[in-house]
Each structure stands twice: as structure tokens, then as C-alpha cells.
């Protein structure tokens, strides 16, 4: 066998063999559940927002808005990839909130996005004081 053929076969085998070092991954990530849930009507403001996916993701973008105004949230973009991501929320007033998120699969760089809303109800008017 000529040197070129031997070299070609060796480099081909090495390149293809090296591919096996690339680990397995899931298909495009999917959101399995969220807390607060989509379309939830809450009596009290949530303190944490949690998104649960079917595979490890890194949450890249999280936008919380109400009545067209963005509410700042502290998203840790340096957090390690995980199937569940929790973000602390600031104190929220009653109203309808829109959540928009984008997550990145660490394996293939594929982006998945979604949005949903939840509502925090106005507390019922406190009962009038009764006199004895």
C-alpha cells in the first residue's frame, strides 16, 4: 500500500473515530412544565419562576412583562446547563404577566423559544370590621 493511501486511510479513520468523542444529545429541547403554569390564576405573587425542560439547557433570555412594561429579572447566564432553571422574581403587583424565554441546547447550540402568560389576581377587598 502506498504512503498516500496509508496516510489517507489513517487520517480518515482518525477523523471519523474522533467523532465518537462527541457525546449523545437529545433532539430539540422541549419545555415540560413551568411554575407558575401557563394561564395560571394566582392569588399571591410568585417569588420564583421555574422552567423544566426534557434535557439540559442554558436559559439565555427571560423577559417578564405586564401591560407592555418589562419587569427586570436577574437571570444567571453563567449557570451550568440543567433541565430545570429557576429565576427569582421581584415583588409583583396584581395583573397579567407575559413570560418569554429562549434556551440554548449546550450540545448542538439549537435554540428553543416559547412564551406564556399568568395572572395575579387582585386580593378580595378585606371584610368590613364588625363591632360588638
Amino acid at each position, binding site marked *: 500500500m502506498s*504512503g*498516500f493511501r496509508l496516510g489517507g486511510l489513517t*487520517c480518515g479513520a482518525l*477523523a471519523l473515530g474522533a*467523532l465518537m468523542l462527541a*457525546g449523545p*444529545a437529545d433532539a*430539540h429541547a422541549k419545555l415540560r412544565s413551568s411554575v407558575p403554569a401557563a394561564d395560571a390564576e394566582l392569588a399571591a405573587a410568585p417569588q420564583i419562576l421555574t422552567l423544566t425542560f426534557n434535557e439540559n439547557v442554558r436559559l439565555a433570555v427571560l423577559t417578564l412583562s405586564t401591560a407592555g412594561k418589562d419587569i427586570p429579572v436577574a437571570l444567571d447566564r453563567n449557570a451550568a446547563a440543567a433541565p430545570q432553571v429557576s429565576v427569582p422574581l421581584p415583588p409583583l403587583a396584581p395583573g397579567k404577566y407575559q413570560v418569554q424565554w429562549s434556551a*440554548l441546547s449546550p450540545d448542538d*447550540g439549537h435554540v428553543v423559544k416559547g412564551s406564556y402568560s399568568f395572572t395575579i389576581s387582585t386580593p378580595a377587598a378585606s371584610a368590613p370590621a364588625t363591632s360588638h
Partner: protein
Amino acid sequence: MSFGVWDAAGVAVKAIAYAATLGASGAVLFLTYSHSLIAGSERVRILRQVRRSSVIAVIAGGVQIMVTAGSMSGNAADLVSPPLLSMVSQTGLGRAIVIRAAGLLFANFGTSPQRRPAWFAAAGAVAAATSFAWVGHTHSLAPYWPPILLVGIHLCAAAFWLGALAPLLTISQTGDLAVVAATAARFGAAAQYVVGVLIAAGLVLLWLLLGGLSQLWMSAYGRCLGLKLALVAGLLSCAAFNKLRLTPRLTAGDSAAIHSLRASIRLEMSLAALILVVTAALTTLNGPPALE
């Protein structure tokens, strides 16, 4: 599913990355196995094509990371957002782009005037062409490594075939009839086996990712794949025409066959471009039915 401007940008830049990388890698492989047939001036022109394609491939990789970053927020300002760019660079996509750039660097060094051993350039070309297999849907299959190897083989064969088109066109424009005939004959002799491997690997992957023949028309992924198969059939027809009709005429000294060869190669290049766009859509927009 909706198809927005970010999806279109993602598909377009991936198709450019495919074309430039497979073009550069395939041209290096072409120069390696056709070295004794190609004159100095033609070799220089083909090397220029390799350098240009390599630069485009590396730039396309960078733009791919930027488009991914921008697509996450849908805000054009995030195309250059350092935290998002850093996040995308750390994914498998970032690793694949680094391997591609390193492979192309090796391939270019291997074809430099101070010519290194042929396997040096070929190793770089193979590494660059197979870099696309480092990410993708096949990583989700269990066991994952046989389909990844199949994708690697499929990519090497695609680079060999599609990457030879531009150099063949260059030689048909500048070379004399005997050189054109000898080069086309050498390429055709090797291509009949390489294309067989390409199709065999592609069909096994199709079976693994579709999860059933009916998904070919029942799923968006399958219909996109059907379009790719139709385009590949067109490309195969052109290749068969070149090998079975035009190459014998060139070998017999029929100079008119050169014009037909040029037209046929241009048609092949157009079909190849369409195939790469469809492949980019296939690997970006929809997950394969077998993984749903």
C-alpha cells in the same frame, strides 16, 4: 411551525457554511488525487478557490454564532451581545466551528507551495468536512456513534463529489482536451464508488431518522427530505450523463464535448447549492420523526 426572519438567516448562513467547507475540502481532495494531471497555472487557480472558500467557511461559522445569539432574543442588537456570543460559542456548535477552522488551516498549509505530504492536506480536509457531524440530530439516536460515523462518511463523500465541481469547471475552461478528458475520467472512476457510499450512508440515516417510510410524506421533516432526494436524483442524472456520455467523447478527442461538460457542471453546481439549502433547513427547522 412559523418560519421567521431569524430562521431564514440561520438556514442561509448554514447553507453557506456547508458550501464553502465542502467546496474547500473537496477541492483539496481533488488536488490530492489529481495532482499528476493538473498543470501549475490551473493548480494555482484551484488553490485560490480553496483559500477563498476556506475564508468564507470560517466567516460563515462566526456569523452562524452571531445569528444564533441574535435569534434568542429576536433583537438585532444581540448579534454582538458578548454574554450571548460566549454562551453559543461554548456549545457543540462552537466546538464544531473550531474543528472546521483548524481542519481548513491544515488543508491550506498542506497545499502550500512548500508542499507537505499529501495526507497532511487530506487530513485537514476530512476534519473540516466531518466537522458538521459533531452536532446534529444523529447524536440523539441510541447507540449514537454508528449514525455519527455514517454522517461523517456521508460528509466526506459529499465533499469529494461536490467539492470537485468547481475545480473540474476550472480545468474545463483552461486545460487542453487531453487534460480535461484524463481529469474527468479519473474523477468519474473514483466517484462511482464514492457516490455509492454517499447514497448508502444517506439511505441508512434516512431510515434511522424517519422511523418509518410513511413519515416521508406525513411529516414536515420527511417532505423536506423528499425534496432533497428529488434534487439528489437530478444531480445523479447529471453525473451519470458526464461519466457515460461526455467523458467517452472527451477521451475520443471530441472538443465540442467540453462545452457540454461545462454546462453540465454548472447545472450540477446549481443543484448542489439547492441541496445544501434544503439540507440546512432539514437540520435546523424540524426534528426528525424518529426522535419526536
